[in-house]
Protein backbone atom coordinates (compact mmCIF):
# COMPACT_ATOMS: atom_id res chain seq x y z
CA UNK A 1 0.00 0.00 0.00
CA UNK A 2 1.40 3.35 -0.93
CA UNK A 3 -0.13 6.56 -2.13
CA UNK A 4 -0.49 8.44 -5.35
CA UNK A 5 2.24 10.78 -4.25
CA UNK A 6 4.78 8.01 -4.63
CA UNK A 7 3.31 6.76 -7.84
CA UNK A 8 3.07 10.08 -9.59
CA UNK A 9 6.54 10.98 -8.56
CA UNK A 10 7.97 7.56 -9.28
CA UNK A 11 8.81 8.60 -12.80
CA UNK A 12 10.81 11.56 -11.57
CA UNK A 13 12.96 9.94 -8.92
CA UNK A 14 16.58 9.27 -9.60
CA UNK A 15 19.03 7.09 -7.86
CA UNK A 16 20.52 9.83 -5.75
CA UNK A 17 23.62 8.92 -3.82
CA UNK A 18 23.37 9.28 -0.11
CA UNK A 19 27.09 9.68 0.15
CA UNK A 20 29.76 10.96 -2.19
CA UNK A 21 30.18 7.91 -4.33
CA UNK A 22 33.48 8.79 -5.94
CA UNK A 23 34.00 9.90 -9.49
CA UNK A 24 32.01 8.58 -12.43
CA UNK A 25 34.29 7.87 -15.34
CA UNK A 26 34.79 10.76 -17.75
CA UNK A 27 36.68 10.25 -21.00
CA UNK A 28 39.28 12.79 -22.10
CA UNK A 29 38.64 13.03 -25.81
CA UNK A 30 34.90 13.63 -25.57
CA UNK A 31 32.82 16.76 -25.21
CA UNK A 32 29.96 17.05 -22.73
CA UNK A 33 26.62 18.78 -22.37
CA UNK A 34 25.34 19.92 -19.00
CA UNK A 35 22.42 17.55 -19.46
CA UNK A 36 24.93 14.70 -19.21
CA UNK A 37 25.28 13.61 -22.82
CA UNK A 38 28.69 13.06 -24.41
CA UNK A 39 29.72 13.57 -28.02
CA UNK A 40 32.68 12.05 -29.89
CA UNK A 41 33.76 14.03 -32.90
CA UNK A 42 35.18 12.64 -36.10
CA UNK A 43 35.31 15.43 -38.67
CA UNK A 44 31.69 16.45 -39.18
CA UNK A 45 30.41 13.20 -37.75
CA UNK A 46 29.30 13.05 -34.12
CA UNK A 47 28.56 9.99 -32.00
CA UNK A 48 26.32 10.69 -29.02
CA UNK A 49 25.42 8.89 -25.80
CA UNK A 50 24.79 9.51 -22.12
CA UNK A 51 27.57 9.68 -19.56
CA UNK A 52 28.51 7.26 -16.81
CA UNK A 53 27.20 9.78 -14.29
CA UNK A 54 23.84 9.81 -16.04
CA UNK A 55 23.45 6.05 -16.36
CA UNK A 56 24.39 5.61 -12.73
CA UNK A 57 21.69 8.01 -11.63
CA UNK A 58 19.10 6.51 -13.91
CA UNK A 59 19.47 2.91 -12.77
CA UNK A 60 18.89 -0.18 -14.90
CA UNK A 61 17.90 0.96 -18.41
CA UNK A 62 15.02 -1.13 -19.76
CA UNK A 63 14.16 0.75 -22.95
CA UNK A 64 15.73 3.26 -25.30
CA UNK A 65 13.54 5.30 -27.60
CA UNK A 66 15.55 5.91 -30.75
CA UNK A 67 14.80 8.48 -33.46
CA UNK A 68 14.45 7.50 -37.10
CA UNK A 69 17.48 7.78 -39.35
CA UNK A 70 17.15 11.03 -41.27
CA UNK A 71 15.57 12.96 -38.41
CA UNK A 72 16.93 16.43 -37.72
CA UNK A 73 18.27 17.18 -34.28
CA UNK A 74 18.93 20.56 -32.70
CA UNK A 75 21.52 21.35 -30.05
CA UNK A 76 19.90 21.22 -26.61
CA UNK A 77 16.69 19.60 -27.82
CA UNK A 78 15.45 16.13 -27.03
CA UNK A 79 15.73 13.44 -29.71
CA UNK A 80 14.69 10.40 -27.76
CA UNK A 81 14.43 8.88 -24.32
CA UNK A 82 16.09 6.43 -22.00
CA UNK A 83 13.88 4.57 -19.57
CA UNK A 84 14.80 2.86 -16.37
CA UNK A 85 12.61 0.84 -14.03
CA UNK A 86 11.49 3.99 -12.32
CA UNK A 87 12.10 6.93 -14.63
CA UNK A 88 11.75 8.12 -18.20
CA UNK A 89 14.38 10.61 -19.23
CA UNK A 90 14.77 12.69 -22.36
CA UNK A 91 18.09 12.57 -24.13
CA UNK A 92 19.14 15.89 -25.63
CA UNK A 93 21.43 16.31 -28.61
CA UNK A 94 24.64 18.22 -27.84
CA UNK A 95 24.85 19.23 -31.53
CA UNK A 96 22.56 20.08 -34.44
CA UNK A 97 22.40 18.03 -37.60
CA UNK A 98 20.88 14.92 -39.14
CA UNK A 99 20.71 11.46 -37.65
CA UNK A 100 22.66 9.09 -39.92
CA UNK A 101 22.74 6.01 -37.71
CA UNK A 102 21.07 4.72 -34.56
CA UNK A 103 22.33 1.96 -32.30
CA UNK A 104 19.85 -0.81 -33.09
CA UNK A 105 21.61 -3.07 -30.50
CA UNK A 106 19.85 -1.03 -27.83
CA UNK A 107 16.50 -2.44 -28.92
CA UNK A 108 17.48 -5.90 -27.73
CA UNK A 109 20.09 -4.86 -25.15
CA UNK A 110 19.12 -1.57 -23.52
CA UNK A 111 21.44 -2.46 -20.62
CA UNK A 112 24.42 -1.56 -22.83
CA UNK A 113 23.77 2.03 -21.80
CA UNK A 114 24.62 1.05 -18.22
CA UNK A 115 27.38 -1.42 -18.97
CA UNK A 116 29.21 0.60 -21.60
CA UNK A 117 27.90 4.17 -21.74
CA UNK A 118 30.78 5.54 -23.82
CA UNK A 119 31.32 2.58 -26.12
CA UNK A 120 28.77 -0.04 -27.12
CA UNK A 121 26.04 1.96 -25.37
CA UNK A 122 26.28 4.81 -27.91
CA UNK A 123 22.86 6.03 -28.99
CA UNK A 124 22.96 7.97 -32.29
CA UNK A 125 25.39 9.23 -34.91
CA UNK A 126 24.77 12.69 -36.35
CA UNK A 127 26.11 14.51 -39.39
CA UNK A 128 26.67 17.96 -37.87
CA UNK A 129 25.27 21.04 -39.56
CA UNK A 130 27.18 23.56 -37.50
CA UNK A 131 30.65 22.55 -36.34
CA UNK A 132 31.16 25.63 -34.18
CA UNK A 133 28.44 24.46 -31.79
CA UNK A 134 30.93 22.16 -30.09
CA UNK A 135 32.65 25.20 -28.65
CA UNK A 136 29.77 25.68 -26.26
CA UNK A 137 30.23 22.16 -24.87
CA UNK A 138 32.38 21.23 -21.87
CA UNK A 139 35.64 19.38 -22.17
CA UNK A 140 36.36 16.42 -19.89
CA UNK A 141 37.96 18.52 -17.17
CA UNK A 142 35.07 20.96 -17.00
CA UNK A 143 32.54 18.16 -17.01
CA UNK A 144 34.38 16.34 -14.23
CA UNK A 145 34.27 19.49 -12.14
CA UNK A 146 30.61 19.98 -13.01
CA UNK A 147 29.80 16.47 -11.72
CA UNK A 148 32.02 16.95 -8.69
CA UNK A 149 30.18 20.11 -7.78
CA UNK A 150 26.90 18.29 -7.94
CA UNK A 151 28.12 15.27 -5.95
CA UNK A 152 29.98 17.39 -3.42
CA UNK A 153 26.81 19.07 -2.32
CA UNK A 154 26.15 15.94 -0.27
Amino acid at each position, binding site marked *: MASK*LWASRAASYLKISAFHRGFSSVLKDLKYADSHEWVKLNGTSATIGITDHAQDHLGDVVFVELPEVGTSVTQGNSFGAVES*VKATSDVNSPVSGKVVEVNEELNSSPGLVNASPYDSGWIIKVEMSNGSEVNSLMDSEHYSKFCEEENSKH
Partner: protein
Amino acid sequence: MRRGVCLWQLGQSITRSALSQTDGKKAAAGAAATAARRGFASDAELKKTALYDFHVENGGKMVPFAGWSMPIQYKDSIMDSTLNCRANGSLFDVSHMCGLSLKGKDCVRFLETLVIADVAGLAPGTGSLTVFTNEKGGAIDDSVITKVKDDHIYLVVNAGCRDKDLAHIESHMKAFKAKGGDVDWHIHDERSLLALQGPLAASVLQLLTKDDLSKLYFGGFQMLDINGIHCFLTRTGYTGEDGFEISVPSERAVDLAKAIVEKSEGKVRLTGLGARDSLRLEAGLCLYGNDMEQHVTPVEAGLTWAIGKRRRAEGGFLGAQVILKQLEEGPPIRRVGFFSTGPPPRSHCEILDAGGKGLGEVTSGGFSPCLKKNIGMGYVKSGSHKNGTELKIVIRGKSYDGVITKMPFVPTKYYKPS
Protein backbone atom coordinates in the same frame (compact mmCIF):
# COMPACT_ATOMS: atom_id res chain seq x y z
CA MET B 1 10.37 15.89 -31.04
CA ARG B 2 8.97 15.36 -27.64
CA ARG B 3 10.19 17.93 -25.22
CA GLY B 4 10.22 16.74 -21.70
CA VAL B 5 12.25 17.53 -18.69
CA CYS B 6 15.71 16.06 -18.83
CA LEU B 7 15.46 14.11 -15.65
CA TRP B 8 18.98 13.58 -14.61
CA GLN B 9 19.66 17.22 -15.13
CA LEU B 10 16.57 18.01 -13.14
CA GLY B 11 17.70 15.48 -10.60
CA GLN B 12 20.99 17.27 -10.23
CA SER B 13 19.39 20.63 -9.73
CA ILE B 14 16.91 19.06 -7.38
CA THR B 15 19.75 17.57 -5.43
CA ARG B 16 21.58 20.87 -5.33
CA SER B 17 18.73 22.83 -3.82
CA ALA B 18 17.69 20.07 -1.44
CA LEU B 19 21.21 19.44 -0.27
CA SER B 20 22.18 23.02 0.37
CA GLN B 21 20.20 22.81 3.56
CA THR B 22 21.36 19.58 5.00
CA ASP B 23 24.36 18.85 7.13
CA GLY B 24 27.06 16.53 5.90
CA LYS B 25 26.25 13.50 8.02
CA LYS B 26 22.60 13.14 7.12
CA ALA B 27 21.57 11.90 3.72
CA ALA B 28 19.81 14.30 1.47
CA ALA B 29 16.24 13.84 0.45
CA GLY B 30 15.98 13.65 -3.29
CA ALA B 31 13.50 15.06 -5.75
CA ALA B 32 13.12 18.50 -4.25
CA ALA B 33 11.04 19.59 -7.26
CA THR B 34 8.37 17.44 -5.75
CA ALA B 35 9.15 18.81 -2.33
CA ALA B 36 9.09 22.36 -3.66
CA ARG B 37 5.72 21.79 -5.25
CA ARG B 38 4.42 20.63 -1.92
CA GLY B 39 5.94 23.58 -0.15
CA PHE B 40 8.80 21.89 1.67
CA ALA B 41 11.79 24.12 2.07
CA SER B 42 14.16 21.36 3.06
CA ASP B 43 14.19 17.75 4.11
CA ALA B 44 13.97 18.91 7.72
CA GLU B 45 10.23 19.19 7.18
CA LEU B 46 9.89 15.56 6.19
CA LYS B 47 8.94 13.09 8.88
CA LYS B 48 11.43 10.37 9.74
CA THR B 49 10.72 6.85 10.87
CA ALA B 50 12.58 5.25 13.76
CA LEU B 51 14.81 3.57 11.17
CA TYR B 52 15.94 6.70 9.33
CA ASP B 53 19.53 6.65 10.58
CA PHE B 54 19.64 2.90 10.11
CA HIS B 55 18.62 3.34 6.45
CA VAL B 56 21.26 5.96 5.86
CA GLU B 57 23.96 3.84 7.54
CA ASN B 58 23.03 1.00 5.22
CA GLY B 59 23.28 3.02 2.05
CA GLY B 60 19.64 4.01 1.77
CA LYS B 61 18.87 6.62 -0.87
CA MET B 62 16.28 8.77 0.84
CA VAL B 63 13.47 10.49 -1.05
CA PRO B 64 10.35 12.34 0.07
CA PHE B 65 7.27 10.19 0.11
CA ALA B 66 3.88 11.22 1.47
CA GLY B 67 5.57 13.69 3.81
CA TRP B 68 8.20 11.21 5.01
CA SER B 69 11.83 10.69 4.11
CA MET B 70 11.93 7.08 2.93
CA PRO B 71 14.49 4.89 1.21
CA ILE B 72 13.71 4.35 -2.46
CA GLN B 73 16.51 1.82 -2.67
CA TYR B 74 19.77 0.87 -0.96
CA LYS B 75 23.03 -0.16 -2.58
CA ASP B 76 21.57 -2.62 -5.01
CA SER B 77 19.38 -1.67 -7.95
CA ILE B 78 15.62 -1.79 -7.89
CA MET B 79 15.74 -4.73 -10.30
CA ASP B 80 18.14 -6.73 -8.13
CA SER B 81 16.13 -5.96 -4.99
CA THR B 82 12.94 -7.16 -6.64
CA LEU B 83 14.55 -10.41 -7.80
CA ASN B 84 16.12 -10.97 -4.39
CA CYS B 85 12.77 -10.58 -2.65
CA ARG B 86 11.31 -13.42 -4.65
CA ALA B 87 14.45 -15.56 -4.43
CA ASN B 88 15.28 -14.93 -0.77
CA GLY B 89 13.56 -12.11 1.03
CA SER B 90 13.23 -8.42 1.69
CA LEU B 91 12.80 -6.28 4.76
CA PHE B 92 10.91 -3.02 4.25
CA ASP B 93 10.37 -0.15 6.63
CA VAL B 94 6.72 0.76 6.17
CA SER B 95 6.40 2.79 9.36
CA HIS B 96 5.10 5.72 7.37
CA MET B 97 1.81 3.86 7.07
CA CYS B 98 -0.69 4.55 9.82
CA GLY B 99 -1.64 1.77 12.23
CA LEU B 100 -4.61 2.19 14.52
CA SER B 101 -6.80 0.21 16.88
CA LEU B 102 -10.54 0.49 17.24
CA LYS B 103 -11.80 -0.70 20.60
CA GLY B 104 -15.14 -1.07 22.34
CA LYS B 105 -17.99 -3.53 22.17
CA ASP B 106 -19.46 -1.80 19.11
CA CYS B 107 -16.22 -1.42 17.19
CA VAL B 108 -17.18 -4.11 14.67
CA ARG B 109 -20.60 -2.62 14.01
CA PHE B 110 -18.98 0.80 13.70
CA LEU B 111 -16.34 -0.26 11.22
CA GLU B 112 -18.95 -2.02 9.10
CA THR B 113 -20.56 1.36 8.37
CA LEU B 114 -17.33 2.45 6.74
CA VAL B 115 -15.93 -0.62 4.94
CA ILE B 116 -17.16 -3.32 2.59
CA ALA B 117 -15.83 -6.25 4.60
CA ASP B 118 -17.87 -8.69 6.65
CA VAL B 119 -16.07 -7.67 9.83
CA ALA B 120 -18.49 -9.53 12.08
CA GLY B 121 -17.79 -12.68 10.12
CA LEU B 122 -14.02 -12.53 10.67
CA ALA B 123 -12.77 -15.08 13.17
CA PRO B 124 -10.69 -13.51 15.96
CA GLY B 125 -7.09 -13.37 14.86
CA THR B 126 -7.91 -13.03 11.19
CA GLY B 127 -8.08 -10.12 8.83
CA SER B 128 -8.46 -9.05 5.26
CA LEU B 129 -7.87 -6.36 2.69
CA THR B 130 -10.81 -3.99 2.58
CA VAL B 131 -11.88 -0.64 1.15
CA PHE B 132 -13.18 2.43 2.94
CA THR B 133 -15.91 3.82 0.72
CA ASN B 134 -17.50 7.22 0.27
CA GLU B 135 -21.14 8.12 -0.39
CA LYS B 136 -20.71 7.52 -4.12
CA GLY B 137 -19.28 4.04 -3.59
CA GLY B 138 -15.79 5.24 -4.50
CA ALA B 139 -12.67 4.27 -2.59
CA ILE B 140 -11.41 6.56 0.15
CA ASP B 141 -8.53 4.17 0.84
CA ASP B 142 -7.67 0.51 0.94
CA SER B 143 -6.62 -1.04 4.21
CA VAL B 144 -5.72 -4.33 5.85
CA ILE B 145 -8.05 -4.78 8.82
CA THR B 146 -7.73 -7.48 11.47
CA LYS B 147 -10.15 -8.56 14.11
CA VAL B 148 -7.92 -9.10 17.13
CA LYS B 149 -10.93 -9.86 19.33
CA ASP B 150 -14.61 -8.93 19.16
CA ASP B 151 -13.87 -5.62 20.86
CA HIS B 152 -10.56 -4.82 19.18
CA ILE B 153 -9.81 -4.22 15.52
CA TYR B 154 -6.32 -3.39 14.31
CA LEU B 155 -5.97 -1.72 10.94
CA VAL B 156 -3.31 -0.14 8.74
CA VAL B 157 -4.00 2.63 6.23
CA ASN B 158 -1.87 4.31 3.57
CA ALA B 159 0.56 7.02 4.56
CA GLY B 160 -0.68 9.40 1.89
CA CYS B 161 -4.27 9.01 3.08
CA ARG B 162 -3.58 9.28 6.79
CA ASP B 163 -5.09 12.72 7.41
CA LYS B 164 -8.05 12.05 5.17
CA ASP B 165 -8.76 8.63 6.67
CA LEU B 166 -8.40 9.70 10.29
CA ALA B 167 -10.69 12.71 9.75
CA HIS B 168 -13.22 10.45 8.10
CA ILE B 169 -13.12 7.81 10.84
CA GLU B 170 -13.17 10.43 13.57
CA SER B 171 -16.21 12.28 12.29
CA HIS B 172 -18.17 9.07 11.85
CA MET B 173 -17.05 7.85 15.24
CA LYS B 174 -18.33 11.04 16.88
CA ALA B 175 -21.74 10.59 15.29
CA PHE B 176 -21.79 6.90 16.22
CA LYS B 177 -20.92 7.63 19.84
CA ALA B 178 -23.51 10.41 20.01
CA LYS B 179 -26.09 7.73 19.34
CA GLY B 180 -24.77 5.67 22.23
CA GLY B 181 -22.29 3.46 20.39
CA ASP B 182 -19.31 2.14 22.33
CA VAL B 183 -16.18 2.67 20.23
CA ASP B 184 -12.91 4.45 20.66
CA TRP B 185 -9.60 4.53 18.88
CA HIS B 186 -5.88 4.63 19.46
CA ILE B 187 -3.46 5.66 16.72
CA HIS B 188 -0.25 3.69 17.02
CA ASP B 189 2.28 6.44 16.50
CA GLU B 190 4.39 4.83 19.19
CA ARG B 191 4.92 1.79 16.97
CA SER B 192 6.85 1.13 13.77
CA LEU B 193 5.93 -1.29 11.02
CA LEU B 194 8.32 -3.63 9.25
CA ALA B 195 7.37 -5.83 6.31
CA LEU B 196 9.31 -9.07 5.93
CA GLN B 197 8.54 -10.76 2.62
CA GLY B 198 9.82 -13.65 0.54
CA PRO B 199 10.39 -17.42 0.71
CA LEU B 200 12.78 -17.08 3.67
CA ALA B 201 10.51 -14.78 5.69
CA ALA B 202 8.90 -17.51 7.80
CA SER B 203 12.04 -19.51 8.47
CA VAL B 204 14.02 -16.41 9.45
CA LEU B 205 11.27 -15.07 11.67
CA GLN B 206 10.87 -18.49 13.29
CA LEU B 207 14.45 -18.23 14.52
CA LEU B 208 13.39 -15.16 16.51
CA THR B 209 10.22 -16.45 18.18
CA LYS B 210 9.04 -19.43 20.20
CA ASP B 211 5.52 -19.31 18.75
CA ASP B 212 4.84 -21.77 15.95
CA LEU B 213 4.49 -19.67 12.81
CA SER B 214 3.43 -22.65 10.72
CA LYS B 215 -0.03 -22.30 12.25
CA LEU B 216 -0.32 -18.63 11.25
CA TYR B 217 -1.88 -18.54 7.81
CA PHE B 218 -2.30 -15.72 5.29
CA GLY B 219 -4.52 -13.04 6.85
CA GLY B 220 -3.86 -14.31 10.36
CA PHE B 221 -2.87 -12.10 13.28
CA GLN B 222 -1.07 -12.77 16.51
CA MET B 223 0.45 -10.82 19.36
CA LEU B 224 3.71 -12.47 20.33
CA ASP B 225 7.29 -11.95 21.38
CA ILE B 226 9.81 -11.63 18.59
CA ASN B 227 13.42 -11.33 19.65
CA GLY B 228 12.11 -10.64 23.15
CA ILE B 229 10.01 -7.73 21.91
CA HIS B 230 6.19 -7.70 22.11
CA CYS B 231 4.91 -7.35 18.53
CA PHE B 232 1.70 -7.46 16.52
CA LEU B 233 2.22 -9.91 13.69
CA THR B 234 0.04 -10.16 10.58
CA ARG B 235 0.72 -12.70 7.87
CA THR B 236 0.18 -10.33 4.97
CA GLY B 237 2.07 -8.10 2.59
CA TYR B 238 2.23 -6.16 -0.60
CA THR B 239 4.50 -8.30 -2.73
CA GLY B 240 2.59 -11.47 -3.55
CA GLU B 241 5.16 -13.47 -1.57
CA ASP B 242 4.63 -15.18 1.77
CA GLY B 243 5.48 -12.74 4.49
CA PHE B 244 4.58 -10.71 7.52
CA GLU B 245 3.98 -7.20 8.68
CA ILE B 246 5.42 -6.69 12.13
CA SER B 247 4.26 -3.84 14.34
CA VAL B 248 6.95 -3.16 16.91
CA PRO B 249 7.40 -0.44 19.58
CA SER B 250 9.47 2.20 17.81
CA GLU B 251 12.29 2.18 20.34
CA ARG B 252 12.97 -1.49 19.46
CA ALA B 253 12.45 -1.21 15.70
CA VAL B 254 16.11 -0.94 14.76
CA ASP B 255 17.03 -3.89 17.00
CA LEU B 256 14.41 -6.01 15.34
CA ALA B 257 15.45 -4.98 11.82
CA LYS B 258 19.08 -5.78 12.61
CA ALA B 259 18.15 -9.13 14.15
CA ILE B 260 16.13 -10.16 11.09
CA VAL B 261 18.87 -9.26 8.64
CA GLU B 262 21.49 -10.99 10.79
CA LYS B 263 19.52 -14.19 11.28
CA SER B 264 19.08 -14.42 7.53
CA GLU B 265 22.86 -14.21 7.12
CA GLY B 266 22.35 -11.35 4.73
CA LYS B 267 19.96 -13.24 2.44
CA VAL B 268 17.09 -11.00 3.49
CA ARG B 269 18.08 -7.56 2.29
CA LEU B 270 16.84 -4.13 3.25
CA THR B 271 14.62 -3.11 0.36
CA GLY B 272 13.17 0.26 -0.57
CA LEU B 273 10.00 1.69 -2.00
CA GLY B 274 11.18 1.40 -5.59
CA ALA B 275 11.29 -2.38 -5.46
CA ARG B 276 8.13 -2.42 -3.37
CA ASP B 277 6.30 -0.82 -6.26
CA SER B 278 7.70 -3.32 -8.79
CA LEU B 279 6.76 -6.21 -6.53
CA ARG B 280 3.19 -5.13 -5.92
CA LEU B 281 2.68 -4.44 -9.62
CA GLU B 282 3.89 -7.94 -10.49
CA ALA B 283 1.46 -9.26 -7.87
CA GLY B 284 -1.42 -7.39 -9.49
CA LEU B 285 -2.08 -5.33 -6.36
CA CYS B 286 -3.68 -1.89 -6.51
CA LEU B 287 -1.82 1.22 -5.52
CA TYR B 288 -4.20 3.73 -4.00
CA GLY B 289 -3.89 6.98 -5.84
CA ASN B 290 -3.18 5.18 -9.11
CA ASP B 291 -5.32 2.06 -9.50
CA MET B 292 -7.89 3.16 -6.98
CA GLU B 293 -9.22 6.60 -6.33
CA GLN B 294 -12.17 8.48 -4.90
CA HIS B 295 -14.19 7.99 -8.05
CA VAL B 296 -13.42 4.29 -8.53
CA THR B 297 -15.58 1.67 -6.86
CA PRO B 298 -14.26 -1.63 -5.48
CA VAL B 299 -16.36 -3.44 -8.09
CA GLU B 300 -14.66 -1.54 -10.91
CA ALA B 301 -11.30 -2.25 -9.26
CA GLY B 302 -11.95 -5.98 -9.29
CA LEU B 303 -12.34 -6.23 -5.53
CA THR B 304 -15.84 -7.68 -5.49
CA TRP B 305 -14.39 -10.67 -3.61
CA ALA B 306 -13.67 -8.27 -0.72
CA ILE B 307 -17.33 -7.33 -0.36
CA GLY B 308 -18.68 -9.70 2.28
CA LYS B 309 -21.55 -11.89 1.14
CA ARG B 310 -23.76 -10.68 3.92
CA ARG B 311 -22.79 -7.10 3.07
CA ARG B 312 -23.97 -7.61 -0.50
CA ALA B 313 -27.36 -8.57 0.81
CA GLU B 314 -27.59 -6.01 3.59
CA GLY B 315 -25.50 -3.03 2.47
CA GLY B 316 -24.99 -0.69 5.42
CA PHE B 317 -21.74 0.90 4.31
CA LEU B 318 -21.27 4.25 2.61
CA GLY B 319 -22.09 4.09 -1.09
CA ALA B 320 -23.75 0.68 -0.76
CA GLN B 321 -26.51 1.67 -3.19
CA VAL B 322 -24.07 2.41 -5.99
CA ILE B 323 -22.00 -0.69 -5.31
CA LEU B 324 -24.93 -3.09 -5.03
CA LYS B 325 -26.31 -1.73 -8.30
CA GLN B 326 -22.96 -2.38 -9.98
CA LEU B 327 -22.96 -5.92 -8.61
CA GLU B 328 -26.35 -6.45 -10.22
CA GLU B 329 -25.82 -4.70 -13.53
CA GLY B 330 -22.08 -4.91 -13.90
CA PRO B 331 -19.72 -1.93 -13.59
CA PRO B 332 -19.16 0.37 -16.59
CA ILE B 333 -15.36 0.00 -16.43
CA ARG B 334 -13.05 -2.67 -15.13
CA ARG B 335 -9.45 -2.92 -13.98
CA VAL B 336 -7.36 -5.16 -16.21
CA GLY B 337 -3.77 -6.27 -16.43
CA PHE B 338 -1.84 -6.24 -19.68
CA PHE B 339 1.49 -6.93 -21.32
CA SER B 340 2.83 -4.41 -23.80
CA THR B 341 5.72 -3.89 -26.21
CA GLY B 342 7.88 -0.85 -26.56
CA PRO B 343 8.64 1.48 -23.67
CA PRO B 344 7.25 0.71 -20.21
CA PRO B 345 3.63 1.92 -19.96
CA ARG B 346 3.05 4.58 -17.34
CA SER B 347 0.11 6.05 -15.52
CA HIS B 348 -2.31 8.05 -17.73
CA CYS B 349 -1.22 6.50 -21.03
CA GLU B 350 -4.25 6.00 -23.24
CA ILE B 351 -5.51 2.50 -24.00
CA LEU B 352 -7.06 1.92 -27.42
CA ASP B 353 -8.56 -1.17 -28.98
CA ALA B 354 -6.87 -2.88 -31.91
CA GLY B 355 -8.78 -0.57 -34.25
CA GLY B 356 -7.63 2.58 -32.50
CA LYS B 357 -10.80 3.43 -30.59
CA GLY B 358 -10.49 4.74 -27.04
CA LEU B 359 -10.98 2.08 -24.37
CA GLY B 360 -9.53 3.55 -21.24
CA GLU B 361 -6.38 4.52 -19.45
CA VAL B 362 -3.29 2.99 -17.85
CA THR B 363 -3.14 3.51 -14.08
CA SER B 364 0.11 1.71 -13.27
CA GLY B 365 2.84 0.23 -15.39
CA GLY B 366 6.49 -0.60 -15.67
CA PHE B 367 9.10 -3.12 -16.62
CA SER B 368 8.79 -6.36 -14.67
CA PRO B 369 12.19 -7.44 -13.32
CA CYS B 370 10.96 -11.01 -12.91
CA LEU B 371 9.20 -11.43 -16.24
CA LYS B 372 11.58 -9.19 -18.17
CA LYS B 373 8.73 -7.57 -20.05
CA ASN B 374 6.39 -4.64 -19.63
CA ILE B 375 3.35 -5.07 -17.41
CA GLY B 376 0.62 -2.63 -16.58
CA MET B 377 -2.82 -2.12 -15.09
CA GLY B 378 -5.54 0.14 -16.26
CA TYR B 379 -9.27 0.57 -16.66
CA VAL B 380 -11.16 -0.28 -19.82
CA LYS B 381 -14.81 -0.24 -20.83
CA SER B 382 -16.65 -3.33 -19.68
CA GLY B 383 -17.09 -5.67 -22.57
CA SER B 384 -13.53 -5.05 -23.71
CA HIS B 385 -11.96 -6.44 -20.58
CA LYS B 386 -11.56 -10.11 -21.39
CA ASN B 387 -8.17 -11.81 -21.28
CA GLY B 388 -6.61 -11.99 -24.70
CA THR B 389 -8.15 -8.72 -25.90
CA GLU B 390 -5.64 -6.92 -28.09
CA LEU B 391 -4.86 -3.35 -27.18
CA LYS B 392 -2.85 -0.39 -28.30
CA ILE B 393 -1.08 1.57 -25.59
CA VAL B 394 -0.23 5.15 -26.52
CA ILE B 395 3.09 6.24 -25.05
CA ARG B 396 4.47 9.66 -25.90
CA GLY B 397 2.45 9.90 -29.07
CA LYS B 398 3.19 6.42 -30.47
CA SER B 399 1.01 3.30 -30.30
CA TYR B 400 2.43 0.03 -29.09
CA ASP B 401 0.80 -3.39 -29.09
CA GLY B 402 -0.58 -4.81 -25.88
CA VAL B 403 -2.78 -7.67 -24.74
CA ILE B 404 -4.99 -8.07 -21.67
CA THR B 405 -3.82 -10.79 -19.36
CA LYS B 406 -4.90 -12.19 -16.03
CA MET B 407 -3.34 -11.03 -12.81
CA PRO B 408 -1.25 -11.64 -10.81
CA PHE B 409 1.48 -11.41 -13.43
CA VAL B 410 3.83 -13.39 -11.21
CA PRO B 411 2.18 -16.27 -9.30
CA THR B 412 1.53 -15.46 -5.66
CA LYS B 413 2.81 -17.56 -2.79
CA TYR B 414 0.42 -16.73 0.02
CA TYR B 415 0.70 -19.20 2.92
CA LYS B 416 -2.62 -20.96 3.06
CA PRO B 417 -3.69 -24.27 4.58
CA SER B 418 -3.34 -27.07 2.02
